[in-house]
């Protein structure tokens, strides 16, 4: 998963947005950072919802 997923995303972004290799890599890095922050917030939210459900 750690190898094919970024390769797929790179090929997909290059194919759709027709950006340069450096531009695509830079955007992939920023997308990874943004997604990691969003996923972290979602996981914290999920645990909070789970804990809240334990009170019912």
């Amino acid at each position, binding site marked *: *998963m750690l190898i*094919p*997923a970024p390769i*797929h*995303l790179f*090929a*997909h*972004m*290059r*194919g*759709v*947005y027709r950006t340069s290799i450096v531009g695509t890599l830079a*955007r992939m890095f*920023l*997308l990874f950072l*943004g*997604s990691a922050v*969003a*996923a972290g917030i*979602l996981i914290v*939210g*999920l*645990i909070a*919802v*789970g*804990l*809240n*459900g*334990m*009170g019912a």
Partner: protein
Amino acid sequence: MSSELELAAGASAGGFVRRMAAKHAPPLGTPCANCATPLQGPWCYACGQSGEDFHRSIVRLMAEVVEGLLHADGRLWRTLPDLMFRPGRLTRSFLEGHRAPQIPPLRLFLVVLLALFLVGGLTSGVKVGPLNATTHTKVGGKVVTTTTQAKSLSDLTPEERARVQAAVSKVKVRIASDKSDEAAGNWLKERLNRTLADPERFYLILEQWSERFAILMLPISALLLSVLFIFQRRFYLFDHTIFSLHSLSALGLMIILAMGVSTIGG
């Protein structure tokens, strides 16, 4: 933006029944069952109701639903290889208007998500190895690395459970910078104790909600792409949404494949 998404969702849902309606359309001139206007095609041009007659056996109806969902008519087999090996071409051709030969992206995403949770549910019986906690301590100028295996809540012995409960009772919540909020602390302690007492119920709630949270990755991804391509005016939020639908569908298929391989590999 919402109208674009509504259009995409409408096109996706509409495509699902359009083929069925055309396949089982009554003869031209048959009065519409709703407004009695003579039909000129599979749909009534006056009230918009489908002229399709649903008086078929349940087996046939179910087979048509499965066929419509999976697009086993050939679009599935054209879309999947492109999605995995030529994703750029697939998304570009959709955005350029060549939509008929491929599965609508929203339906593809929803079917992959459904398959992901189905496969996840089937393979959840697979025992996942315990997490390891690694600590580094300095002893006489030398760094000693100790690895301890973390246990899941349900595997704790009564003594370990008592120790965890004692640790939970010391939990303090700080909402303001230097003021601990007693009410929030009590809320958290109470729920942590209930989780310790019934971890299976906690996992079940997490499993139910994770499906809803997974869908949230779609708007998040589309918004992030909008920010990343903010200076490229030729791309709209609709383009980023289609890109995200294809990208997340491909990721979902990779996860399904990885889960399948890990289950077969033991």
